[in-house]
């Protein structure tokens, strides 16, 4: 009888169990499975590669030390780790007082008095990508208020569902939708002010040669 391969969620659980049992290979496997998406999320969220590296390291050290209370009934390990990454970054930001607590923290910020934050201490952001167009978008993302940025990154860049994002950000699904909608609108507006337009891009050189 052929053994069914473990699903992603079950594989993570098995690796976690083996890690807690002192299996070094389980650690490297878990790390290989989750480090890159976490690192990319942390870069987009914090704007800094060094902060992102610290966050990833802190997450896995906490896993090694069994400091997390992960409940598989509440969702996948990957979602849980995104939530941890987000919280670690939030704590760093609170410690550095990069963002002042203002009105929108009381609700979801969808009122007329919402402020837009620009983190002047970080800008200009370190150059991470060689591609200028991608960097422009990344900079525009950094300008969006954190609670909108979280939802946008998790949905658009990490392909998480509304339910997963709601659990990670500790908000309801309706709030996920509204923040996503506003974040998208804000991002579009910022890109257009940077000169990136919605004119359809011309076909690439290789495809033009094919058409001849």
């Amino acid at each position, binding site marked *: 009888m052929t053994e069914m391969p473990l699903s992603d969620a079950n594989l993570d659980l098995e690796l976690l169990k083996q890690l807690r049992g002192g299996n070094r290979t389980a650690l490297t496997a878990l790390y290989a499975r989750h480090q890159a998406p976490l690192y990319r999320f942390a870069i987009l969220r914090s704007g800094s590669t060094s902060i992102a*590296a610290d966050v990833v*390291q802190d997450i896995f050290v906490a896993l*090694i030390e069994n400091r997390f209370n992960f409940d598989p009934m509440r969702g996948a390990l990957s979602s849980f780790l995104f939530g941890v990454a987000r919280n670690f970054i939030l704590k760093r930001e609170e410690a550095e007082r990069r963002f002042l607590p203002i009105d929108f923290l009381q609700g979801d910020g969808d009122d007329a008095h919402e402020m837009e934050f620009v983190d002047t201490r970080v800008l200009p952001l370190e150059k991470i990508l060689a591609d200028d167009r991608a960097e422009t978008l990344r900079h525009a993302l950094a300008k969006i208020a954190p609670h909108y940025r979280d939802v946008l990154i998790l949905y658009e860049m990490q392909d998480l569902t509304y339910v997963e994002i709601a659990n990670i950000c500790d908000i309801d699904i309706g709030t996920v939708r509204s923040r996503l909608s506003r974040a998208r609108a804000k*991002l*579009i507006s910022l890109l257009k002010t940077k000169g990136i337009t*919605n004119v359809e891009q011309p076909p690439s050189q290789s495809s033009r040669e094919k058409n001849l």
Partner: protein
Amino acid sequence: MKPNLSDDQFLKRELDHLNAKMISITAPPTVETALLKAFACQQKITNAAQHKRTTFGKIAEWFAPGVAIAASVSMSVWMLLSLSLDPVQGLPTDSIGNNDAPFIALQSLEQIALEPNPRLIETQVPKMMLASMGLSVSPETANESLRAEMLVSATGQPLALRFSPQ
């Protein structure tokens, strides 16, 4: 002429572009190196804690029948016992370790478990000490001594006691 993209299409195009440029980005190798070191440290801590638990568990097993007696041992008894700790010379050492009698704890089990280098010595304990520990002693034999094995710390502090076959 192709119409402009809708805002949604425009944003999707830009986000897809960013995704494509970021897909190859991974955490620096120094992170994994640090994690493997952290793992090695954690394993040492876990193994040390496991060793202590095992030692503690074994000691607790030794003391299980004697715990009730240990509870009645007062500090004054301990001090008196410490005065009678002269290792007995010439007694066969193979009696040590073959004695199945339970130990009577003279210190807390945690303190005993934490002792890095305990040693077992043969000694003689005045019978009148048993009276101090709540055990009955015949007046005719109160002045006699009993052979016992004493678990002592590296500095000679009595940790536990068990009586040897007389």
